[in-house]
């Protein structure tokens, strides 16, 4: 199957409306608005088996089918999650910076599918280039009358509101995002109620990831059967795999779901930088944790990675070279997660900080044998015990470091105790 997500990624600036339309952009959106019903769109996406690219891999068509069929006493909303904060993840950014109209067409079709006349695009505060590209693209659509009182002359109003976040990882969690969008503190909401019942401004809402929506125009154009010719049976289609860290050609690669990590790292990204050995790799963003190099043959799809005890997450691979000690890599992430938890739930707030303090001790050569049991207890006391799944995220690197690299952690601590000057790395004391 030819690429349908990354065709414009080689550009230096965003593809503008006229050129995008010349390449067929908005043909599907127009067809949808002027000749299809919402059910037909939802069915096509359901049949294609499209699953959410935000990390949870929930089937998109099913999510849309939870939305009210007749908006009850007020509007329904589509909210686009462009907060992309997961370390190692930079795929949504490529779409927005280079091909904003691909996303915007997906948004229009998605909005139609759930009977929303307003879509809120919540974009990560740091993504200024992407923000400007989108703002320009939205203005182009408004000027062309595609967005406005009657999209494509269908009589159906459509508007897209661009909203910048203020730089918080937790605002990528969909209900924290909704709170933040509403001007509240960016904290996840207890569920139920789910967004389809009580979402943005208390209205039924579907929250969808940027890349998820970018898949939609192609599905409408070529059909569900075509879509399923790529990827795995349970996870069809292409994924934008971000590869970063110590590789020769870091970047964003569009490949079918189920491609092996080895193919991605060795063939596409050119292998470990400088021909060095790999200490570990992270399959799908920081929260998916470390895998040892002997797992490189794992197929990059949700089901295969689950069998390895981890997740596909965002598909953002991070390669850690031999010269970086696992304890230092683990500390980067424990600090990150400690910094980014919203902190409302006692186990997550305290557990993320406490485990970071323990890892920091290992880093300083002060690890103790009973620390492993303690860390397991911290994870046990917080996973599935909080408002959102953040503890699963901070437990990703932590648990996998213990599971796959316990010996290295012990050795690093002992070695640094013996040679304190060489401890190096981060020295932030918690």
């Amino acid at each position, binding site marked *: 199957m030819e690429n349908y997500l990354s065709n414009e990624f080689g550009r230096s600036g965003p593809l503008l409306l006229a050129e995008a339309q010349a390449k067929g952009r908005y043909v599907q959106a127009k067809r949808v608005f002027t000749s299809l019903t919402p059910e037909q769109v939802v069915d096509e996406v359901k049949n294609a088996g499209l699953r959410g690219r935000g990390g949870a891999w929930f089937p998109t068509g099913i999510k849309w089918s939870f939305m009210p069929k007749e908006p009850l006493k007020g509007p329904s909303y589509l909210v686009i999650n462009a907060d992309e904060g997961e370390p190692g993840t930079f795929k949504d950014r490529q779409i927005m910076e280079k091909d904003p109209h691909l996303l915007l067409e997906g948004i229009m079709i998605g909005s139609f599918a759930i009977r929303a006349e307003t879509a809120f695009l919540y974009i990560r505060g740091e993504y200024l280039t992407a923000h400007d590209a989108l703002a320009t693209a939205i203005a182009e659509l408004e000027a062309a009358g595609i967005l406005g009182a009657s999209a494509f002359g269908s009589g159906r109003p459509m508007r897209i509101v661009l909203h910048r976040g203020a730089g918080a990882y937790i605002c990528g969690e969909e209900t924290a995002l909704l709170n933040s969008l509403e001007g509240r503190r960016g904290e996840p909401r207890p569920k139920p109620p789910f967004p389809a019942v009580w979402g943005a401004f208390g209205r039924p809402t579907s929250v969808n990831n940027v890349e998820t929506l970018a898949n939609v125009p192609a599905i409408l154009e070529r059909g569900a059967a075509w879509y399923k010719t790529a990827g795995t049976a349970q996870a069809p289609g292409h994924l934008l795999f971000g590869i970063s860290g110590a590789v020769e050609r870091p970047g964003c690669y569009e490949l079918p779901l189920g491609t092996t990590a080895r193919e991605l790292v060795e063939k596409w990204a050119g292998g470990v930088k400088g021909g060095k050995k790999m200490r570990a790799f992270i399959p799908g963003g920081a929260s998916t944790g470390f895998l040892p190099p002997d797992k490189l043959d794992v197929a990059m799809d949700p089901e295969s990675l689950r069998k390895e005890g981890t997740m596909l997450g965002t598909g953002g691979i991070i390669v850690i070279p031999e010269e970086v000690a696992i304890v230092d890599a683990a500390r980067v992430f424990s600090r990150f997660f400690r910094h980014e938890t919203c902190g409302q739930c*006692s186990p997550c707030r305290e557990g993320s900080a406490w485990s970071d303090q323990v890892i920091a001790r290992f880093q300083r050569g002060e690890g103790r044998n009973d620390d492993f049991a303690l860390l397991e207890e911290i994870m046990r006391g917080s996973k599935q015990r909080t408002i959102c799944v953040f503890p699963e995220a901070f437990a990703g690197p932590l648990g996998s470091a213990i599971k796959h690299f316990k010996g290295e952690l012990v050795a690093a601590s002992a070695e640094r105790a013996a040679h304190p000057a060489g401890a190096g790395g981060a020295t932030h004391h918690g």
Partner: protein
Amino acid sequence: MAELTIDGRKVEVPPGTNLIEAARKLAIEIPYYCYHPALAPVGSCRMCQVEILDPGKPPRVTIACRTEATNGLNVSTTGKDCVAARAATLEFLLANHPLDCPICDKAGECDLQNFTYRHGHGAGRFSEPKRAKLKHEPIGDHILLDQERCILCTRCVRFMGEYAKSPSLVVAGRGDRNVIATFPGEPIHSNYEGNLADICPVGALTLKEFRFKSRVWDLDSTESVCTGCDRNCSILLETKRNRLLRVRPRVNLQVNGHFMCDVGRFGLLDALNPQGREEQGFVKGARVTAADAVAALAATLAAERGKWLIVLSARLTTEELLLAKTVLGPLARTLAYVPVEANGGDAILYTGRAAANAKALERLGVTALDEAAAAKLLAEPATSGLLSFDAALAARLMAGTKGKRLALIDVVAGRAADAPGAPHGAELFVPGTLFSEKDGTFLNLDGVLQRAQRAQRWPQGTIPETVVLREIAGAAKVDVTALVAKPDLTFALLESFGLPGATLAQLPDDGLKLAAAPATAGAAAGATA
């Protein structure tokens, strides 16, 4: 009704009741911090975890505060997973807690202490440096914040927004840097600030007025009502060696819910610890014992029947008012009270009407006179003097009148120990007592009759108003046998309202809501409007 099972016992609750409240009905404790019955549940502290048992499935750990009771639900509070989850939560909360219990006002009534004993591990494993945050920061007129003791339950934040309608507290920061804070330069400004010290489950919010005054286990707690306005919030008066150290609201869903206002809380703290209280009687400028002052007053009223304007006060208990009406009615030229206007009330609890028992005066059918009418009546030649139970009011009424005599029965504070002459130059002065020094009831604006129990001893030398009134009745030969033949004055009072009698001790803890007054008894009611 939903019937569910908790720890093997069945209980029926209205649908929608959460599991914490359902368990409470069975006297099963589900511990919690962020939950509060008067606030929307947020489910963040994770202390109330229980297990839901579904046949054929492993137990599911969830939070009780946001789980609604439904028919057939089977809940365990003792399953090993939820017990472990609660112990883990406590260990997390204690990790950075400063453990300054020995110097913390909350010790002894702290939910972190209590739940740790009942639901925690014996020992903590946290061995890292603890977080340092701000301690004893003033954040309002009354409250000091200790961010280290704070467990970030956000009850205070939600209380100020949801209840006090003054969203002045926030969570600032993120993660373990989270702290409770006010907006820069904007301290709390609210009539409900004092409640923060009560709703804070730990010692993070303490009252300036109570700091380091007493260990809570040394306090004597007495159920009473607030007399700051005619809401009559249910309260606890907490004393140590007869001195009132703290006033707290008591839950009463038909009066004040869970809270009280600052006018009441701190007003009572002043009013019930009067400084420079006059504890002796006066007759014609000479200091005498209270008994002698009462005898002189009784003799005067008996000798001058029908000549005195007698003004009752809403500070008196309902029983005192009943007795006063019975005894003084036949002796007075006019027996009346002066209704108090509302001043500065709010839409939450405080009515602004500083007349705790106004409703009782109205309901007893005592004549209402405004100040001008009372002053006019006093000025009439046929009136020889004013007997008042309210010294401040009497002073105002006397101000514009010449040659009238004054008798006072009241608590008067702010006097020098050797002050010459009686307060306000009264010819007769009887040192009265505070409502907290005797048992009685108050009738609030909604007609709820509540018990105020004796929390303090009256000072030697002062004399309770019922004793004064019985003396007067004896001297003036007013027949009160119909009243004193009853089990007690409360019983007589209820009967006089045409209701079934009940003694003071028999009144429910949250008060008795009286049916609306029958039309005939309400003859004087219009006068207050």
